């Protein structure tokens, strides 16, 4: 009996699944947080979280030490507009309002681009429905935990979000589809589609509120609930402020249109995505309280992108808008650190502010900034180690950690090449 108790006590004393702490030592730490830049700093990671960060942090015995001397340690990059890791068509484009479909249902954990993006310092992504629909489907914020299953990639606790799209894509003006054209075909129709959807959502909400009220009353026959519509339920949740709206848009007039529609129905747009003419209406966006997530310098691929300028981010930031830079591309996602450098050139954004645009700002926009976006005590250990300053022309990502686990190690990746049977990013 006593022996058993002793053993139990021992088990209780030792933390279950105790992983050794990790210490990233000697690098220039760009915390993106209140501690700013720490020369020859140490980041101590324990249990997947940042336990300490500073110039004089003691490294506990038994810790795995990562030598970052001469290198730069930054928060993991967050791509606020991604279609990576989606199985099948990223658009449910057969109808113009499809709020019921969920990206989380079709996460493709085997997409090798997850690994390739880790190799570019990306640790989290906002995986969105495509832009074929005025109101698209529900997004999934994921962490690049390469090797884990689809459910485990989901960023637990990330606020719900949905995709809207305005302009040329949802009105399908750039290609002909055989058969009857899908409504809408103009920007007027896009607005009407969205208004109509929310009016129906209002009706649905009224029905369900009435039902809830009836339930509360005692006595009498139990009422039958109204028909549950997955689509209208999501729209109702948007009305009730439970879902972040990420709206793909280009032209200044459609940005203003959506602000008006949202305010008429009593909800806010969380982010305008692409928003290439955001610079023309930056104060209106700031007043509404939306963030913006844009490209650094893509332009001229569509008519609505013809007025796009690389100073977009700088002007919007000057007006107090929270700006992030995104990729909307598996290929570009791997070099977001250099896309951030471009806004230093175009519009004179300061380097710390530019780095924020691919770290803390997207974290804030996605409502996950309590957990990620900067290297601060208590936050997740989502960290990238670069061989030089991330904006330097010679830099390369050497290591990427998510939740304190090394998911990309360039040295190991290179060493594994040429080995028979090994493939790139071979799943652990």
């Amino acid at each position, binding site marked *: 009996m006593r022996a058993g108790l002793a053993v139990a006590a021992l088990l209780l004393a030792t933390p279950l699944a105790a992983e050794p702490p990790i210490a990233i030592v000697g690098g220039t730490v760009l915390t993106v947080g209140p501690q700013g830049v720490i020369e020859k700093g140490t980041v101590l990671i324990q249990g997947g979280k940042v336990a300490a960060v500073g110039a004089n942090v003691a490294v506990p015995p038994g810790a795995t030490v990562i030598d970052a001397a001469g290198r730069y340690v930054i928060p993991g990059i967050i791509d606020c507009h991604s279609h990576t890791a989606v*199985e*099948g*068509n*990223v*658009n*449910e*484009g*057969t*109808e113009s309002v*499809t709020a*019921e*479909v*969920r*990206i989380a*249902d*079709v*996460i*493709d*954990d*085997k997409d090798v681009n997850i690994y390739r993006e880790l190799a570019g310092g990306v640790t989290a992504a906002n995986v969105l*429905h495509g832009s074929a629909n005025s109101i698209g*489907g529900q997004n999934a914020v994921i962490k690049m935990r390469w090797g884990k*299953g*689809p*459910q485990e990639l989901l960023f637990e606790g990330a606020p719900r979000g949905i995709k809207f799209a305005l302009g040329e894509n949802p009105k399908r003006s750039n290609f002909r589809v*055989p*058969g009857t054209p899908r409504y809408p075909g103009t920007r007027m129709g896009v607005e009407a589609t969205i208004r109509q959807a929310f009016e129906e959502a209002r009706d649905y909400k009224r029905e369900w509120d009435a039902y809830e009220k009836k339930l509360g009353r005692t006595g009498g*026959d139990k009422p*039958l*609930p109204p*028909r*549950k*519509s*997955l*689509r209208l339920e999501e729209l109702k949740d948007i009305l009730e402020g439970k879902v972040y709206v990420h709206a793909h848009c280009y032209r200044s007039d459609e940005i203003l249109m959506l602000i008006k529609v949202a305010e008429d129905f009593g909800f806010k747009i969380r982010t305008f995505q692409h928003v290439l003419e955001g610079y023309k209406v930056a104060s209106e966006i700031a007043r509404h309280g939306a963030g913006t997530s844009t490209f650094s310098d893509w332009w001229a691929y569509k008519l609505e992108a013809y007025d796009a300028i690389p100073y977009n981010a700088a002007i919007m930031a000057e007006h107090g808008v929270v700006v992030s830079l995104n990729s909307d591309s598996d290929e570009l996602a791997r070099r977001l650190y250099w896309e951030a450098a471009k806004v230093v050139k175009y519009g004179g954004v300061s380097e710390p502010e530019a780095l924020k645009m691919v770290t803390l700002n997207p974290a804030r926009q996605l409502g996950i900034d309590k957990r990620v976006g900067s290297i601060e005590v208590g936050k997740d250990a989502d960290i990238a180690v670069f061989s030089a300053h991330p904006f330097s022309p010679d830099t390369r990502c050497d290591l990427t950690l998510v939740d304190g686990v090394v998911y990309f190690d360039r040295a190991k990746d290179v060493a594994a090449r040429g080995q028979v049977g090994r493939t790139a990013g071979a799943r652990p």
Partner: protein
Amino acid sequence: MRRVMTVAVLAASLATLALGARRDVFAIVGGRVVTVSGPVYDNATVVVRDGLIEAVGPGVAAPPDARVIEAKGLTITPGLIDAFGGVGLPSAPARGGRGGGGASPAPAASPAGNPLAPQAFALDRVRPDEALKARDQGVTTALVIPKEGVLPGQSVILNLSGEKTEGMVLKQPAALHLHMATLTRQYPGALMGTIAYARQALYDARAYREEWAAYDRSPRGRKRPRYDAALEAWQDVLSGREPLVVTATRENDVRRALALADEFKIKVAVAGAPQASRLASLIKQRSLPLLVSVNFDPPRAATFFGAEDEERERKDIEEAQKNPAELHKAGVRFALVSGYAASFLDGIRKAVEKGLPREAALKAVTLDAAEAVGIADRTGSVETGKIANLVLWSGEPLAKDAKVKMVFVDGQLYEPDERPDRRGEPSPSPSPEVER
């Protein structure tokens, strides 16, 4: 009185003797018998009477009224069960036969029906003469469901004997099917749409049941609900009486099927599943019935965006071919099914070539297949009392050089035509090898 009866009986027997052996009684003698459920007999007799297996064993004597089938040098196995495929269904043209956009290579009307019709019965589309051709490969029993569409309807299990489909029905309906597929110009056009569609359908079916139940309980003062054939069709799945068979093309489709089972507390099975071996422990843990397809390189739409990665596609096909062997190694029980493969036997042979032990393959197309689709109590092995579905093979059953010499379905004899250009026809007359 009794004396008259005895004489009458004697007279009848003599008359029978004079006419010859009874047509529905067979004694298959001298062959090797692989029962699947029990031992393998090097030399045993199988007695078939009135469509059932009457007796099996080394010591069994041929009844006096039986036609004797000399099976020396042959091996007898249970008839093959193709527990998921298109036996008897007309094949669609190469382009999904719903018309639109560009010339279709094949002429003629599309055989594909409404792609979203859980209430449709595969039974209504079966062509009996087409179905019977499967016997040439030793298939005696088949679960049939169209491969097109997302909700193709409810499958039927056929026992391939007789001339009319109704006479073939073994289980109707067998299951309700959901293909993890998409449609081209109507919802759902993306996989996430397919999942949302299925979820919405199940919510609607629940609401439908509650509406009708409330109405039936007390109709006074209530507006009568509307009848909906599709929502009716879902009821047996909702109540757990019928499984939902989800056709999986990739690993995560298996997870999606289980997610549906969890959300709606329904029974699911998974068909196709070329990557199921990656989820062996999950499948075992959830006791998920698995219908593993041998259609390793199915016709697919070419990828549109970016270059095709041929290396990747080849790897996928190889993985699919090794999938049955890997599942077996991991101790997972499964049915091996055609999955609309052009040749079921060739597919089975490929699985064996890639590491599935032949014995395990045989079990996967007989007893385990029966188990997976809920007919193991009546077929799938050579056991007394079960339906007389048998195959007589020359050579090792399922081997490349093995030939299907004779097939019994519901105790009726069928001999595949040896000549390659002639299809075998049901032979009502006694076989020339009959001794009596």
